[in-house]
Protein backbone atom coordinates (compact mmCIF):
# COMPACT_ATOMS: atom_id res chain seq x y z
CA UNK A 1 0.00 0.00 0.00
CA UNK A 2 2.73 2.45 0.95
CA UNK A 3 5.24 1.10 -1.54
CA UNK A 4 3.84 2.84 -4.60
CA UNK A 5 3.65 6.30 -3.10
CA UNK A 6 6.25 8.26 -4.99
CA UNK A 7 8.03 11.32 -3.74
CA UNK A 8 6.28 13.40 -6.38
CA UNK A 9 2.83 12.19 -5.45
CA UNK A 10 3.65 12.82 -1.83
CA UNK A 11 4.77 16.40 -2.51
CA UNK A 12 1.72 17.05 -4.63
CA UNK A 13 -0.57 15.76 -1.93
CA UNK A 14 1.18 17.98 0.64
CA UNK A 15 0.61 20.99 -1.61
CA UNK A 16 -3.07 20.14 -1.96
CA UNK A 17 -3.22 19.70 1.81
CA UNK A 18 -1.63 23.10 2.29
CA UNK A 19 -4.22 24.78 0.11
CA UNK A 20 -6.99 23.12 2.13
CA UNK A 21 -5.17 24.39 5.18
CA UNK A 22 -5.65 27.92 3.88
CA UNK A 23 -9.42 27.63 4.00
CA UNK A 24 -9.33 25.98 7.42
CA UNK A 25 -7.02 28.70 8.70
CA UNK A 26 -9.17 31.56 7.43
CA UNK A 27 -12.33 30.10 8.95
CA UNK A 28 -10.83 29.05 12.26
CA UNK A 29 -8.87 32.26 12.77
CA UNK A 30 -12.20 34.10 12.67
CA UNK A 31 -13.63 31.67 15.18
CA UNK A 32 -10.56 32.04 17.36
CA UNK A 33 -10.78 35.82 17.29
CA UNK A 34 -14.36 35.72 18.54
CA UNK A 35 -13.53 33.10 21.17
CA UNK A 36 -10.51 35.03 22.38
CA UNK A 37 -12.11 38.44 22.75
CA UNK A 38 -15.81 37.75 23.28
CA UNK A 39 -15.49 34.32 24.93
CA UNK A 40 -18.25 32.98 22.70
CA UNK A 41 -17.93 29.49 21.24
CA UNK A 42 -19.78 30.48 18.11
CA UNK A 43 -21.38 27.36 16.64
CA UNK A 44 -23.05 29.25 13.76
CA UNK A 45 -19.63 30.29 12.48
CA UNK A 46 -19.92 27.25 10.18
CA UNK A 47 -23.32 28.43 8.96
CA UNK A 48 -21.80 31.77 8.02
CA UNK A 49 -19.17 29.91 6.03
CA UNK A 50 -21.93 28.07 4.18
CA UNK A 51 -23.89 31.28 3.63
CA UNK A 52 -20.70 32.89 2.30
CA UNK A 53 -20.42 30.14 -0.30
CA UNK A 54 -24.08 30.49 -1.34
CA UNK A 55 -23.87 34.28 -1.57
CA UNK A 56 -20.74 33.89 -3.71
CA UNK A 57 -22.69 31.58 -5.99
CA UNK A 58 -25.61 34.00 -6.29
CA UNK A 59 -23.37 37.00 -6.86
CA UNK A 60 -21.62 35.18 -9.68
CA UNK A 61 -24.98 34.13 -11.16
CA UNK A 62 -26.25 37.71 -11.16
CA UNK A 63 -23.28 38.64 -13.30
CA UNK A 64 -24.25 35.88 -15.70
CA UNK A 65 -21.07 33.86 -15.52
CA UNK A 66 -18.79 36.63 -16.71
CA UNK A 67 -15.12 36.17 -15.76
CA UNK A 68 -15.55 39.07 -13.35
CA UNK A 69 -18.20 37.12 -11.43
CA UNK A 70 -15.83 35.25 -9.15
CA UNK A 71 -13.94 38.37 -8.11
CA UNK A 72 -17.14 40.25 -7.33
CA UNK A 73 -18.39 37.25 -5.37
CA UNK A 74 -15.14 37.21 -3.39
CA UNK A 75 -15.89 40.73 -2.19
CA UNK A 76 -19.68 40.55 -1.86
CA UNK A 77 -19.88 37.25 0.05
CA UNK A 78 -17.79 38.20 3.09
CA UNK A 79 -19.44 41.62 3.27
CA UNK A 80 -22.89 40.06 3.13
CA UNK A 81 -21.96 37.66 5.91
CA UNK A 82 -20.51 40.54 7.94
CA UNK A 83 -23.82 42.39 7.57
CA UNK A 84 -25.79 39.38 8.82
CA UNK A 85 -23.50 39.04 11.81
CA UNK A 86 -23.82 42.74 12.58
CA UNK A 87 -27.60 42.38 12.78
CA UNK A 88 -27.42 39.29 14.98
CA UNK A 89 -24.79 40.80 17.27
CA UNK A 90 -26.46 44.18 17.80
CA UNK A 91 -29.94 42.74 17.87
CA UNK A 92 -29.53 39.81 20.24
CA UNK A 93 -26.03 38.82 21.17
CA UNK A 94 -24.93 41.98 22.89
CA UNK A 95 -27.54 41.32 25.57
CA UNK A 96 -26.15 37.93 26.51
CA UNK A 97 -22.43 38.46 27.10
CA UNK A 98 -22.68 37.91 30.83
CA UNK A 99 -24.34 34.49 30.49
CA UNK A 100 -22.37 31.32 31.06
CA UNK A 101 -20.59 29.52 28.22
CA UNK A 102 -23.14 26.73 28.04
CA UNK A 103 -25.99 29.17 27.38
CA UNK A 104 -23.96 31.06 24.79
CA UNK A 105 -23.05 27.80 23.09
CA UNK A 106 -26.69 26.72 22.89
CA UNK A 107 -27.73 30.17 21.76
CA UNK A 108 -25.32 30.08 18.84
CA UNK A 109 -26.47 26.52 18.12
CA UNK A 110 -30.03 27.84 17.87
CA UNK A 111 -28.81 30.21 15.19
CA UNK A 112 -27.11 27.38 13.41
CA UNK A 113 -30.48 25.61 13.23
CA UNK A 114 -32.20 28.77 12.03
CA UNK A 115 -29.56 29.61 9.44
CA UNK A 116 -29.50 26.04 8.18
CA UNK A 117 -33.18 26.17 7.33
CA UNK A 118 -33.05 29.73 6.02
CA UNK A 119 -30.39 28.65 3.53
CA UNK A 120 -32.69 25.82 2.47
CA UNK A 121 -35.55 28.32 2.06
CA UNK A 122 -33.52 30.77 0.00
CA UNK A 123 -31.33 28.52 -2.10
CA UNK A 124 -33.20 25.21 -2.03
CA UNK A 125 -31.71 21.80 -1.35
CA UNK A 126 -29.90 21.30 -4.66
CA UNK A 127 -26.17 21.24 -5.18
CA UNK A 128 -24.72 24.47 -6.53
CA UNK A 129 -21.36 25.07 -8.05
CA UNK A 130 -19.25 28.07 -8.85
CA UNK A 131 -16.43 27.89 -11.35
CA UNK A 132 -13.14 29.62 -10.87
CA UNK A 133 -12.30 32.48 -13.25
CA UNK A 134 -10.51 31.35 -16.46
CA UNK A 135 -7.15 32.58 -15.27
CA UNK A 136 -7.32 30.22 -12.27
CA UNK A 137 -8.63 27.21 -14.18
CA UNK A 138 -6.40 24.43 -15.42
CA UNK A 139 -3.21 22.99 -14.06
CA UNK A 140 0.45 23.72 -13.45
CA UNK A 141 2.97 21.02 -13.73
CA UNK A 142 4.82 20.47 -10.46
CA UNK A 143 7.25 17.55 -10.04
CA UNK A 144 5.86 16.26 -13.29
CA UNK A 145 2.37 16.03 -11.84
CA UNK A 146 -0.57 18.34 -12.46
CA UNK A 147 -1.30 20.86 -9.72
CA UNK A 148 -4.53 22.91 -9.92
CA UNK A 149 -3.97 26.63 -10.49
CA UNK A 150 -6.76 27.44 -8.07
CA UNK A 151 -4.93 25.65 -5.26
CA UNK A 152 -1.88 27.72 -6.01
CA UNK A 153 -4.05 30.81 -5.74
CA UNK A 154 -5.23 29.63 -2.32
CA UNK A 155 -1.61 29.15 -1.28
CA UNK A 156 -1.05 32.82 -2.04
CA UNK A 157 -4.16 34.01 -0.23
CA UNK A 158 -3.35 32.20 3.02
CA UNK A 159 -0.22 34.18 3.96
CA UNK A 160 -1.96 37.36 2.83
CA UNK A 161 -4.82 36.83 5.29
CA UNK A 162 -2.37 35.86 8.02
CA UNK A 163 -0.44 39.06 7.45
CA UNK A 164 -3.65 41.10 7.38
CA UNK A 165 -4.73 39.62 10.71
CA UNK A 166 -1.33 40.21 12.24
CA UNK A 167 -1.45 43.81 11.06
CA UNK A 168 -4.98 44.24 12.36
CA UNK A 169 -4.32 42.88 15.84
CA UNK A 170 -0.87 44.37 16.36
CA UNK A 171 -0.76 47.62 14.44
CA UNK A 172 -4.24 49.09 14.51
CA UNK A 173 -6.04 50.76 17.39
CA UNK A 174 -9.00 48.40 17.34
CA UNK A 175 -6.65 45.44 17.39
CA UNK A 176 -4.79 46.73 20.40
CA UNK A 177 -8.00 47.54 22.26
CA UNK A 178 -9.48 44.15 21.51
CA UNK A 179 -6.34 42.39 22.70
CA UNK A 180 -6.54 44.35 25.93
CA UNK A 181 -10.26 43.56 26.20
CA UNK A 182 -9.49 39.88 25.80
CA UNK A 183 -7.31 40.00 28.89
CA UNK A 184 -9.27 42.40 31.06
CA UNK A 185 -12.55 43.83 29.85
CA UNK A 186 -13.28 45.86 32.99
CA UNK A 187 -10.02 47.70 32.60
CA UNK A 188 -10.75 48.60 29.00
CA UNK A 189 -14.22 49.76 29.96
CA UNK A 190 -12.77 51.81 32.81
CA UNK A 191 -10.55 53.89 30.54
CA UNK A 192 -13.61 55.12 28.70
CA UNK A 193 -13.68 52.85 25.65
CA UNK A 194 -17.06 51.53 24.59
CA UNK A 195 -16.36 47.82 25.04
CA UNK A 196 -19.67 46.85 23.49
CA UNK A 197 -18.70 48.32 20.11
CA UNK A 198 -15.22 46.80 20.29
CA UNK A 199 -16.90 43.44 20.75
CA UNK A 200 -19.22 44.12 17.83
CA UNK A 201 -16.29 45.03 15.60
CA UNK A 202 -14.32 41.92 16.55
CA UNK A 203 -17.36 39.72 16.07
CA UNK A 204 -17.99 41.13 12.62
CA UNK A 205 -14.37 40.72 11.56
CA UNK A 206 -14.45 37.13 12.77
CA UNK A 207 -17.63 36.43 10.82
CA UNK A 208 -16.24 38.23 7.77
CA UNK A 209 -13.47 35.63 7.74
CA UNK A 210 -16.04 32.82 7.82
CA UNK A 211 -17.72 34.37 4.78
CA UNK A 212 -14.38 34.79 3.02
CA UNK A 213 -13.56 31.14 3.67
CA UNK A 214 -16.93 30.14 2.22
CA UNK A 215 -16.41 32.21 -0.92
CA UNK A 216 -12.89 30.82 -1.41
CA UNK A 217 -13.93 27.22 -1.00
CA UNK A 218 -16.86 27.55 -3.43
CA UNK A 219 -14.96 26.74 -6.65
CA UNK A 220 -13.31 23.66 -5.12
CA UNK A 221 -16.40 21.73 -4.07
CA UNK A 222 -20.16 21.48 -4.32
CA UNK A 223 -21.99 24.20 -2.44
CA UNK A 224 -24.50 22.32 -0.36
CA UNK A 225 -26.50 21.96 2.81
CA UNK A 226 -24.43 20.38 5.53
CA UNK A 227 -21.25 22.31 4.73
CA UNK A 228 -21.79 24.04 8.06
CA UNK A 229 -21.74 20.80 10.07
CA UNK A 230 -18.53 19.57 8.55
CA UNK A 231 -16.50 22.73 8.94
CA UNK A 232 -17.53 23.89 12.38
CA UNK A 233 -16.24 20.87 14.28
CA UNK A 234 -12.96 21.04 12.36
CA UNK A 235 -12.66 24.75 13.11
CA UNK A 236 -13.34 24.19 16.80
CA UNK A 237 -10.75 21.45 17.04
CA UNK A 238 -8.19 23.61 15.24
CA UNK A 239 -8.80 26.46 17.63
CA UNK A 240 -8.56 24.14 20.61
CA UNK A 241 -5.27 22.52 19.62
CA UNK A 242 -3.84 25.91 18.66
CA UNK A 243 -4.79 27.57 21.94
CA UNK A 244 -8.07 29.44 22.37
CA UNK A 245 -7.97 32.94 20.94
CA UNK A 246 -4.46 32.67 19.52
CA UNK A 247 -4.39 33.50 15.79
CA UNK A 248 -1.03 31.82 15.23
CA UNK A 249 -2.39 28.85 17.11
CA UNK A 250 -5.18 28.71 14.54
CA UNK A 251 -2.56 28.68 11.80
CA UNK A 252 -0.60 25.91 13.46
CA UNK A 253 -3.77 23.94 14.17
CA UNK A 254 -4.96 24.32 10.57
CA UNK A 255 -1.58 23.08 9.33
CA UNK A 256 -1.74 20.01 11.55
CA UNK A 257 -5.32 19.32 10.53
CA UNK A 258 -4.81 19.89 6.82
CA UNK A 259 -1.56 17.95 6.58
CA UNK A 260 -2.68 14.91 8.58
CA UNK A 261 -5.77 14.85 6.40
CA UNK A 262 -3.81 14.80 3.14
CA UNK A 263 -1.29 12.29 4.48
CA UNK A 264 -4.24 10.15 5.54
CA UNK A 265 -5.61 10.21 2.01
CA UNK A 266 -2.27 8.87 0.74
CA UNK A 267 -1.73 6.25 3.40
CA UNK A 268 -5.18 4.84 4.08
CA UNK A 269 -7.90 6.51 2.00
CA UNK A 270 -10.80 4.72 3.65
CA UNK A 271 -9.92 6.09 7.07
CA UNK A 272 -8.40 9.41 5.97
CA UNK A 273 -11.11 11.22 7.91
CA UNK A 274 -9.83 9.64 11.13
CA UNK A 275 -6.24 10.93 10.90
CA UNK A 276 -6.85 14.59 11.81
CA UNK A 277 -8.97 13.58 14.78
CA UNK A 278 -6.22 11.29 16.03
CA UNK A 279 -3.76 14.15 15.65
CA UNK A 280 -6.03 16.38 17.70
CA UNK A 281 -6.41 13.81 20.44
CA UNK A 282 -2.65 13.20 20.57
CA UNK A 283 -1.92 16.93 20.78
CA UNK A 284 -4.46 17.44 23.54
CA UNK A 285 -3.18 14.50 25.55
CA UNK A 286 0.21 16.14 25.78
CA UNK A 287 -0.80 19.81 25.66
CA UNK A 288 -4.30 19.97 27.10
CA UNK A 289 -4.44 23.77 26.86
CA UNK A 290 -3.33 23.86 23.23
CA UNK A 291 0.03 24.26 21.55
CA UNK A 292 0.39 28.02 21.83
CA UNK A 293 -0.48 30.32 24.68
CA UNK A 294 -4.20 30.80 25.04
CA UNK A 295 -5.52 34.23 25.90
CA UNK A 296 -7.95 32.68 28.38
Amino acid at each position, binding site marked *: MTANITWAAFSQQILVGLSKTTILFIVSSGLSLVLGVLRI*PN*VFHGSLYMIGAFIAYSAAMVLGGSPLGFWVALVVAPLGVALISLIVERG*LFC*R*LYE*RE*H*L*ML*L*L*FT*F*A*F*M*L*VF*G*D*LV*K*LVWGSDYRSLSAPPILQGYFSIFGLPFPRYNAFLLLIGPLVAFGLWFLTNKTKIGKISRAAAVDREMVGAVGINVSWVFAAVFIIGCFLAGLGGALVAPTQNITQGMD*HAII*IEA*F*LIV*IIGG*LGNIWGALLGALIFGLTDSIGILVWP*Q*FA*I*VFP*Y*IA*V*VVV*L*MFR*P*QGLLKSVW
Partner: protein
Amino acid sequence: MFAAAINKRSFGIAVTLLVLLGVLPFFLDRFYIYLTALILVTGLLATSLNMVLGYGGMYQFHHAVFYGVGAYACALTLIKTDLPPYAGFIVGPVVAAAVGVIMGLICVRLSKLYFGMLQIALGSLVWAIVYRWYSFTGGDDGLHGVPVPDLISSINGAYYFTLIITALCMVLIYLIINSPFGRIFQAIRDNPERSETIGVNVKRHQLVGLTIAAFFGGVAGSLFVTVEGSVFPDLMFWTLSLEILIMCLLGGWFTFLGPMVGAGIVVSLQTFVGMYTEYWTLIMGIILILLIFFLPEGVLGFFLERFSSREQAMSAEK
Protein backbone atom coordinates in the same frame (compact mmCIF):
# COMPACT_ATOMS: atom_id res chain seq x y z
CA MET B 1 -41.42 16.97 57.41
CA PHE B 2 -41.68 19.06 54.30
CA ALA B 3 -39.15 16.88 52.53
CA ALA B 4 -41.13 13.76 53.39
CA ALA B 5 -44.35 15.30 52.01
CA ILE B 6 -42.64 16.24 48.76
CA ASN B 7 -41.39 12.72 48.32
CA LYS B 8 -44.78 11.19 48.96
CA ARG B 9 -46.26 13.47 46.34
CA SER B 10 -43.55 12.72 43.76
CA PHE B 11 -44.04 9.02 44.44
CA GLY B 12 -47.74 9.41 43.74
CA ILE B 13 -47.06 11.26 40.51
CA ALA B 14 -44.57 8.61 39.40
CA VAL B 15 -46.98 5.74 40.03
CA THR B 16 -49.83 7.51 38.23
CA LEU B 17 -47.58 8.22 35.27
CA LEU B 18 -46.44 4.62 35.12
CA VAL B 19 -49.99 3.26 35.20
CA LEU B 20 -51.04 5.71 32.48
CA LEU B 21 -48.09 4.71 30.31
CA GLY B 22 -48.82 1.06 31.05
CA VAL B 23 -52.37 1.14 29.69
CA LEU B 24 -51.52 3.40 26.75
CA PRO B 25 -51.26 0.59 24.16
CA PHE B 26 -54.93 -0.30 24.76
CA PHE B 27 -56.05 3.10 23.52
CA LEU B 28 -53.54 4.32 21.00
CA ASP B 29 -52.64 3.13 17.54
CA ARG B 30 -49.21 1.86 16.49
CA PHE B 31 -47.83 5.21 15.52
CA TYR B 32 -48.44 6.83 18.89
CA ILE B 33 -47.09 3.84 20.75
CA TYR B 34 -43.96 4.03 18.65
CA LEU B 35 -43.72 7.77 19.33
CA THR B 36 -44.13 7.30 23.07
CA ALA B 37 -41.43 4.64 23.08
CA LEU B 38 -39.12 7.00 21.21
CA ILE B 39 -39.83 9.75 23.74
CA LEU B 40 -39.03 7.40 26.61
CA VAL B 41 -35.74 6.36 25.01
CA THR B 42 -34.73 9.93 24.22
CA GLY B 43 -35.89 11.06 27.66
CA LEU B 44 -33.71 8.44 29.33
CA LEU B 45 -30.79 9.65 27.22
CA ALA B 46 -31.43 13.28 28.23
CA THR B 47 -31.84 12.32 31.89
CA SER B 48 -28.53 10.46 31.84
CA LEU B 49 -26.90 13.56 30.35
CA ASN B 50 -28.50 15.78 32.92
CA MET B 51 -27.10 13.67 35.71
CA VAL B 52 -23.63 14.96 34.85
CA LEU B 53 -24.71 18.32 33.41
CA GLY B 54 -27.37 19.64 35.78
CA TYR B 55 -26.29 17.76 38.90
CA GLY B 56 -22.57 17.46 38.26
CA GLY B 57 -21.92 20.73 36.46
CA MET B 58 -19.77 19.01 33.84
CA TYR B 59 -19.77 20.34 30.30
CA GLN B 60 -20.74 17.05 28.73
CA PHE B 61 -20.92 18.33 25.15
CA HIS B 62 -20.87 15.00 23.37
CA HIS B 63 -23.10 12.66 25.28
CA ALA B 64 -24.62 11.17 22.13
CA VAL B 65 -21.41 9.16 21.63
CA PHE B 66 -22.41 6.86 24.47
CA TYR B 67 -25.90 6.52 23.03
CA GLY B 68 -24.45 5.57 19.65
CA VAL B 69 -21.80 3.25 21.06
CA GLY B 70 -24.43 1.51 23.20
CA ALA B 71 -26.72 1.12 20.18
CA TYR B 72 -23.97 -0.20 17.92
CA ALA B 73 -22.57 -2.55 20.55
CA CYS B 74 -26.05 -3.95 21.14
CA ALA B 75 -26.85 -4.27 17.43
CA LEU B 76 -23.49 -5.85 16.58
CA THR B 77 -23.88 -8.36 19.40
CA LEU B 78 -27.29 -9.31 18.09
CA ILE B 79 -26.12 -9.55 14.47
CA LYS B 80 -22.62 -10.97 14.67
CA THR B 81 -22.36 -13.13 17.77
CA ASP B 82 -23.93 -16.37 18.95
CA LEU B 83 -24.46 -15.01 22.42
CA PRO B 84 -27.98 -15.37 23.85
CA PRO B 85 -30.15 -12.62 22.30
CA TYR B 86 -30.66 -10.59 25.46
CA ALA B 87 -26.89 -10.38 26.03
CA GLY B 88 -26.85 -7.50 23.56
CA PHE B 89 -28.75 -5.40 26.06
CA ILE B 90 -25.99 -5.94 28.60
CA VAL B 91 -23.12 -5.60 26.15
CA GLY B 92 -24.45 -2.26 24.87
CA PRO B 93 -24.42 -0.36 28.16
CA VAL B 94 -21.20 -2.03 29.34
CA VAL B 95 -19.29 -1.07 26.19
CA ALA B 96 -20.70 2.47 26.44
CA ALA B 97 -19.49 2.66 30.05
CA ALA B 98 -16.07 1.37 28.99
CA VAL B 99 -15.83 4.09 26.34
CA GLY B 100 -16.92 6.50 29.07
CA VAL B 101 -14.02 5.41 31.28
CA ILE B 102 -11.49 5.85 28.49
CA MET B 103 -12.83 9.25 27.44
CA GLY B 104 -13.16 10.27 31.06
CA LEU B 105 -9.55 9.41 31.87
CA ILE B 106 -8.45 11.73 29.08
CA CYS B 107 -11.00 14.50 29.66
CA VAL B 108 -11.46 15.01 33.39
CA ARG B 109 -8.02 16.57 33.75
CA LEU B 110 -9.52 19.61 32.05
CA SER B 111 -12.31 21.81 33.23
CA LYS B 112 -15.39 23.42 31.75
CA LEU B 113 -15.10 24.49 28.12
CA TYR B 114 -11.84 22.61 27.49
CA PHE B 115 -13.40 19.47 28.91
CA GLY B 116 -16.37 19.85 26.58
CA MET B 117 -14.24 20.53 23.53
CA LEU B 118 -11.89 17.60 24.09
CA GLN B 119 -14.94 15.43 24.49
CA ILE B 120 -16.25 16.63 21.13
CA ALA B 121 -12.86 15.81 19.59
CA LEU B 122 -12.80 12.29 21.02
CA GLY B 123 -16.44 11.72 20.17
CA SER B 124 -15.91 12.86 16.60
CA LEU B 125 -13.06 10.38 16.35
CA VAL B 126 -15.39 7.57 17.37
CA TRP B 127 -17.99 8.84 14.93
CA ALA B 128 -15.46 9.04 12.10
CA ILE B 129 -14.38 5.43 12.66
CA VAL B 130 -17.95 4.17 12.71
CA TYR B 131 -18.77 6.28 9.66
CA ARG B 132 -15.99 4.73 7.60
CA TRP B 133 -15.67 1.16 8.80
CA TYR B 134 -18.07 -0.32 6.23
CA SER B 135 -17.13 -3.94 6.78
CA PHE B 136 -17.92 -3.83 10.50
CA THR B 137 -20.36 -1.02 11.24
CA GLY B 138 -21.97 -0.64 7.84
CA GLY B 139 -20.40 2.80 7.44
CA ASP B 140 -22.71 5.71 6.67
CA ASP B 141 -25.57 3.32 5.79
CA GLY B 142 -25.66 1.88 9.28
CA LEU B 143 -27.09 -1.54 10.08
CA HIS B 144 -30.69 -2.37 9.41
CA GLY B 145 -33.01 -5.21 10.28
CA VAL B 146 -31.27 -6.03 13.54
CA PRO B 147 -32.63 -9.40 14.79
CA VAL B 148 -34.33 -8.24 17.98
CA PRO B 149 -35.53 -11.13 20.23
CA ASP B 150 -39.06 -12.30 19.30
CA LEU B 151 -40.74 -11.32 22.56
CA ILE B 152 -39.85 -7.67 22.15
CA SER B 153 -39.86 -7.35 18.38
CA SER B 154 -43.56 -6.48 18.07
CA ILE B 155 -44.45 -2.85 18.61
CA ASN B 156 -46.21 -3.59 21.92
CA GLY B 157 -43.41 -5.87 23.06
CA ALA B 158 -40.83 -3.20 22.25
CA TYR B 159 -42.95 -0.60 24.02
CA TYR B 160 -43.32 -2.53 27.25
CA PHE B 161 -39.66 -3.52 27.24
CA THR B 162 -38.71 0.12 26.78
CA LEU B 163 -41.13 1.29 29.43
CA ILE B 164 -39.93 -1.19 32.04
CA ILE B 165 -36.23 -0.62 31.43
CA THR B 166 -36.66 3.16 31.28
CA ALA B 167 -38.66 3.22 34.50
CA LEU B 168 -36.05 1.04 36.19
CA CYS B 169 -33.22 3.28 35.01
CA MET B 170 -35.05 6.43 36.06
CA VAL B 171 -35.43 4.98 39.56
CA LEU B 172 -31.74 4.10 39.65
CA ILE B 173 -30.69 7.55 38.45
CA TYR B 174 -33.02 9.12 41.00
CA LEU B 175 -31.44 7.05 43.76
CA ILE B 176 -27.94 7.99 42.62
CA ILE B 177 -28.74 11.69 42.48
CA ASN B 178 -30.10 11.53 46.02
CA SER B 179 -27.33 9.32 47.38
CA PRO B 180 -24.23 10.56 49.20
CA PHE B 181 -22.44 10.34 45.85
CA GLY B 182 -25.12 12.54 44.27
CA ARG B 183 -24.85 15.04 47.11
CA ILE B 184 -21.10 15.29 46.66
CA PHE B 185 -21.58 15.52 42.90
CA GLN B 186 -23.82 18.56 43.39
CA ALA B 187 -21.29 20.04 45.78
CA ILE B 188 -18.65 19.69 43.04
CA ARG B 189 -21.00 21.39 40.57
CA ASP B 190 -21.43 24.34 42.90
CA ASN B 191 -17.82 24.66 43.95
CA PRO B 192 -15.03 22.31 42.86
CA GLU B 193 -12.37 24.18 44.84
CA ARG B 194 -14.27 23.87 48.09
CA SER B 195 -15.01 20.22 47.36
CA GLU B 196 -11.28 19.52 47.15
CA THR B 197 -10.82 21.34 50.42
CA ILE B 198 -13.29 19.10 52.24
CA GLY B 199 -11.35 16.05 51.12
CA VAL B 200 -13.15 15.10 47.92
CA ASN B 201 -11.13 13.78 45.00
CA VAL B 202 -13.00 15.84 42.43
CA LYS B 203 -11.51 14.31 39.29
CA ARG B 204 -12.24 10.78 40.42
CA HIS B 205 -15.85 11.61 41.28
CA GLN B 206 -16.25 13.21 37.89
CA LEU B 207 -14.84 10.10 36.25
CA VAL B 208 -17.26 7.87 38.16
CA GLY B 209 -20.17 10.19 37.33
CA LEU B 210 -19.28 10.26 33.65
CA THR B 211 -19.01 6.48 33.54
CA ILE B 212 -22.42 6.02 35.15
CA ALA B 213 -23.97 8.54 32.75
CA ALA B 214 -22.30 6.76 29.82
CA PHE B 215 -23.74 3.47 31.04
CA PHE B 216 -27.30 4.83 31.09
CA GLY B 217 -26.69 6.52 27.75
CA GLY B 218 -25.75 3.06 26.48
CA VAL B 219 -28.96 1.61 27.92
CA ALA B 220 -30.91 4.23 25.96
CA GLY B 221 -28.94 3.28 22.85
CA SER B 222 -29.81 -0.41 23.30
CA LEU B 223 -33.47 0.50 23.72
CA PHE B 224 -33.29 2.50 20.51
CA VAL B 225 -32.24 -0.69 18.73
CA THR B 226 -35.32 -2.40 20.16
CA VAL B 227 -37.65 0.34 18.99
CA GLU B 228 -36.11 1.05 15.57
CA GLY B 229 -34.44 -2.23 14.66
CA SER B 230 -31.56 -0.31 13.10
CA VAL B 231 -28.53 1.84 13.91
CA PHE B 232 -26.75 4.59 11.95
CA PRO B 233 -23.87 7.01 12.54
CA ASP B 234 -26.19 9.99 13.13
CA LEU B 235 -26.86 8.46 16.55
CA MET B 236 -23.43 9.69 17.63
CA PHE B 237 -23.15 12.85 15.56
CA TRP B 238 -22.41 15.96 17.60
CA THR B 239 -25.60 17.78 16.61
CA LEU B 240 -27.63 15.14 18.43
CA SER B 241 -25.55 15.89 21.53
CA LEU B 242 -26.53 19.53 21.33
CA GLU B 243 -30.16 18.54 20.75
CA ILE B 244 -30.26 16.58 23.98
CA LEU B 245 -28.59 19.50 25.73
CA ILE B 246 -31.52 21.56 24.48
CA MET B 247 -33.97 19.00 25.87
CA CYS B 248 -32.36 19.37 29.31
CA LEU B 249 -32.48 23.13 29.08
CA LEU B 250 -36.03 23.16 27.74
CA GLY B 251 -37.39 20.92 30.46
CA GLY B 252 -35.33 22.43 33.23
CA TRP B 253 -31.87 21.19 33.99
CA PHE B 254 -32.04 21.56 37.74
CA THR B 255 -35.09 19.31 37.95
CA PHE B 256 -35.19 15.54 37.81
CA LEU B 257 -38.00 15.05 35.29
CA GLY B 258 -37.17 18.18 33.29
CA PRO B 259 -35.06 16.39 30.65
CA MET B 260 -37.80 13.79 30.14
CA VAL B 261 -40.34 16.58 29.64
CA GLY B 262 -37.92 18.36 27.29
CA ALA B 263 -37.44 15.17 25.29
CA GLY B 264 -41.21 14.79 25.02
CA ILE B 265 -41.58 18.31 23.70
CA VAL B 266 -38.70 18.09 21.21
CA VAL B 267 -39.53 14.62 19.84
CA SER B 268 -43.23 15.51 19.48
CA LEU B 269 -42.39 18.80 17.78
CA GLN B 270 -39.98 17.03 15.47
CA THR B 271 -42.67 14.52 14.52
CA PHE B 272 -45.74 16.71 14.22
CA VAL B 273 -44.19 19.88 12.87
CA GLY B 274 -42.18 17.65 10.55
CA MET B 275 -45.45 16.42 9.03
CA TYR B 276 -46.45 19.88 7.89
CA THR B 277 -43.14 21.48 7.03
CA GLU B 278 -39.60 20.44 6.30
CA TYR B 279 -38.41 23.51 8.20
CA TRP B 280 -38.86 22.17 11.66
CA THR B 281 -35.28 22.94 12.76
CA LEU B 282 -36.05 26.60 12.04
CA ILE B 283 -38.92 26.41 14.50
CA MET B 284 -36.75 24.52 16.96
CA GLY B 285 -34.08 27.22 16.72
CA ILE B 286 -36.57 30.01 17.31
CA ILE B 287 -38.03 28.21 20.31
CA LEU B 288 -34.55 27.81 21.73
CA ILE B 289 -33.74 31.49 21.25
CA LEU B 290 -36.96 32.51 23.00
CA LEU B 291 -36.24 30.01 25.75
CA ILE B 292 -32.79 31.38 26.49
CA PHE B 293 -34.12 34.91 26.65
CA PHE B 294 -37.26 34.34 28.65
CA LEU B 295 -37.14 30.97 30.41
CA PRO B 296 -33.53 30.05 31.25
CA GLU B 297 -34.61 27.70 34.06
CA GLY B 298 -36.66 25.60 31.64
CA VAL B 299 -40.35 24.77 31.53
CA LEU B 300 -40.46 22.46 34.53
CA GLY B 301 -38.00 24.64 36.43
CA PHE B 302 -40.27 27.61 35.81
CA PHE B 303 -43.37 25.88 37.14
CA LEU B 304 -41.58 24.38 40.12
CA GLU B 305 -40.27 27.81 41.05
CA ARG B 306 -43.76 29.28 40.83
CA PHE B 307 -45.06 26.39 42.83
CA SER B 308 -42.49 26.54 45.61
CA SER B 309 -42.70 30.32 45.95
CA ARG B 310 -46.47 30.05 46.32
CA GLU B 311 -46.03 27.33 48.87
CA GLN B 312 -43.49 29.37 50.79
CA ALA B 313 -45.84 32.34 50.75
CA MET B 314 -48.60 30.10 52.11
CA SER B 315 -46.48 28.71 54.91
CA ALA B 316 -45.28 32.23 55.73
CA GLU B 317 -48.88 33.32 56.15
CA LYS B 318 -49.45 30.62 58.71
